[in-house]
């Protein structure tokens, strides 16, 4: 029997494709990594996923799980062919359990859809990635994504209580429980979060949710240089004020934002910090006053966003700014490489300065923006995709950005994941811990069928 027939028997004829056209559409995510699968399968439930993995394991066929394919490191790209499991069709919110402060979801639920539903209940799921409108929760969990609010609320890892995971041989486990805390053995939930589909396929998740704050305010502070902005952030955080978002935008980013949404009028400056505070009406006013006082010696201008409408406009444009940089020059396109480093927060001013010198060294404009409050900087580079020489400079600059972050005790990926794009830095960043990861991988996936070629394992 042909392999495709076996797969069709499990999920149905219409949920398997081996069409060259379809395979081409599934051969990439938003990174530069490419790999063409032999089959794309769209399962409908965990039982089907289990049968597919059992079959693939027996026949040693690689399996790569994929949500919306919005990843930036090739995590969902089938490097060694085999099956891409498109889980975006498993998109049911299974249970909203407000009394237990949790929800149960399938992996294909889109992030923003969950928050739309929770908003009506007065709750939210705090991790807030820029790709909220399109990324799936399964992908977010598998990459330990986070976003703008992690400075206060932490990353996805902090919100996962339990995962249903299909292991390489098709067996199904639950990694946690419905309780808000547990000391029962190894923390397999935290192991699976961020494992990028190399240890199992997530088919269900129980996520902790948080009450929506009663008030929010946004303070926009302008600075002459990114380094001054970085210093203001370090100073603010050390004063004991924890913003719910703390974003840096360099001059180019502000230009991009203003052109993407002309309603946003952020003043031109060397760098801008957007501080958001959430809480009660009085607490946000008090915190905004503290941040204004702290930033005053560093800033060239400070103002508070006029109203909720302005705040929403700023955030919705900010979420998509990474791609919007492509608008600046019709012949250039944003390429996601070296885009997600993280450093200890006190190293932020230094990292900003070093990024600038890398930009000068390779004669490549680098837009800097990101979640500066947790040390996560996004660097945006645009090139003419048809110019090989620009590609070369781009890759050299990205390499140097990664190595610089590691030198400052930082990480090559704060929230986007390693995939295959950043594998080569795992040894440098993780040292001997990588050997432990390799041992875990071998124990759980002895035949190496799960997302091979990723994470350096």
């Amino acid at each position, binding site marked *: 029997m042909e392999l495709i027939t076996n797969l069709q028997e499990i999920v149905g004829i219409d949920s398997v494709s081996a069409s060259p*056209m379809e395979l081409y559409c599934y051969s990439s995510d*938003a990174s530069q990594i490419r790999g063409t699968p032999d089959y794309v399968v769209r399962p409908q439930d965990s039982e089907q996923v289990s049968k597919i993995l059992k079959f693939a394991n027996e026949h040693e066929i690689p399996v790569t799980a994929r949500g919306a394919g919005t990843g930036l490191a090739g995590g969902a790209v089938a490097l060694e062919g085999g099956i891409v499991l498109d889980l975006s069709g498993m998109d049911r919110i299974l249970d909203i359990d407000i009394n237990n402060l949790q929800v149960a979801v399938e992996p294909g639920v889109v992030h923003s859809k969950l928050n739309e539903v929770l908003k009506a209940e007065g709750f939210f799921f705090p991790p807030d990635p820029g*790709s909220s409108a399109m990324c799936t929760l399964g992908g977010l969990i598998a990459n330990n994504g986070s976003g703008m609010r992690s400075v206060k609320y932490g990353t996805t890892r902090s919100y996962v209580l339990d995962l249903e995971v299909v292991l390489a041989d098709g067996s199904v486990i639950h990694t946690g429980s419905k309780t808000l805390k547990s000391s029962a053995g190894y923390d397999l939930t935290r192991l699976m979060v961020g494992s990028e589909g190399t240890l199992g396929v997530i088919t269900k998740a129980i996520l902790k949710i948080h009450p929506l704050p009663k008030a929010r305010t946004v303070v926009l502070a302008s600075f002459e240089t990114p380094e001054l902005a970085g210093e203001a952030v370090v100073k603010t955080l050390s004063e004991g004020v924890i913003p719910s978002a703390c974003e840096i935008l360099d001059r180019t980013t502000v230009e991009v934002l203003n052109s993407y949404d002309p309603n946003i009028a952020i003043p031109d400056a060397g760098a801008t910090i957007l501080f958001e505070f959430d809480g009660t009406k009085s607490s946000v006013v008090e915190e905004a006053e503290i941040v204004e006082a702290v930033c005053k010696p560093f800033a060239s201008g400070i103002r508070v966003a006029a109203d909720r409408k302005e705040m929403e406009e700023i955030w919705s444009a900010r979420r998509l700014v990474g*791609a919007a940089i*492509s*608008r600046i020059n019709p012949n250039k396109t944003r390429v996601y490489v070296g885009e997600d480093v993280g450093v200890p927060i006190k190293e932020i001013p230094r990292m900003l300065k070093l990024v600038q010198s890398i930009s000068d060294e390779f004669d490549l404009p680098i837009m800097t923006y990101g979640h500066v409050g947790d040390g996560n900087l996004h660097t945006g580079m645009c090139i003419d995709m048809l110019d090989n020489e620009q590609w070369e400079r781009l890759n050299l600059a990205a390499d140097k950005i990664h190595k610089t972050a590691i030198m400052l005790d930082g990480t090559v990926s704060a929230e986007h994941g390693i995939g295959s794009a950043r594998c080569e830095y795992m040894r440098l960043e993780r040292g001997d811990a990588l050997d432990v990861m390799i041992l875990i991988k071998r124990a759980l996936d002895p035949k190496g069928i799960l997302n091979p070629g990723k994470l350096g394992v």
Partner: protein
Amino acid sequence: MLDVDLRSVLKCVRCGACRSVCPVLEEVGWESAGARGRMLVAHGISQGLDVDDDVLESLNTCMTCGMCKQMCPAGANPINVIENIRHRLVMKGDMTEAQKKLHKRITETGNSLGEESGRREWLGECTGSIKETAEYVYFVGCLGAYRYPESVIATFDVLSHFDVTLLPDEVCCGSPLIRTGFDADKMIAHNVEQIRMVGAHTIITSCAGCHNTLIQSYPDEFKVVHVSEFLAEHLSELELKRLDLTVTYHDACHLGRCRGVFDAPRKVITAVCDLKEMKTNREDARCCGGGGGVRTGYPELSLALVKKRLMDVPDGVDYLITSCPLCTKNLIEGGSDTDVIDLVELVRLAMK
């Protein structure tokens, strides 16, 4: 290998933001059914991907509704890329049976419906009273002329208060041809010659597809306004009474998102009755599922999409108002519980 404008294709950074808005992707689920997938298919073709039935289906199931273009953070224009590729494929002879039939109908009969009868039959006895020259010309469109005579009569009746005439020998504006990859040069040249003969400075359209095409693909020697814009500007001259009705309004993609005409129809509606908006409206309005050749080529998909659009109709409205006969057709055939009428029919109800 097909010559593809690679630079426009590479403008897509594959961030997937369009996944959140593409109605076809939402319905079908496969990556190839969304804007990002179609950009990848275009890229694949430039790299030697064989053009098979699956490729044609991916490219031809785009309704050109413009949601992806409107929200694309990177500034890519998937509609242009898709229409260009459709064109290049058609030039090479790669097309579906539905495309071939559509082309044959239009070139043989001058209308998208393949009707052999006269385009002006809706006029009935009044043919003799049509002016030879006028400041304005009413461009009727195929669907209006052959399928919705009552709304065309209403439109011409309302417009007869002004210096408006018809083209002596109007043919299809070319929209269905251009959307599905064909040249429409002959149709365009024929209509342009007619417009010059009439001497009009402005063309008034009542179909979103005609409107978009007359602006986009015709020489810019005359002004093009949609009848909703024309009426909004001349409301005070029409002596309209207030109707005891509440209606809702469906924004046609090629009039709204593509041409930015949102306020005019609303101004006309609220001048005569109450308006209750659909769940998604203006820039965010869902497509009726009819555009881009999807109604003709993929009727089942089109039907599934119009059913979703109909779920946006609010409770307690007397009419669902449209300003495009293709939308009207799809909304009616999709089983609308609310009566679907053209904006101008509403205006005529309000005329004293």
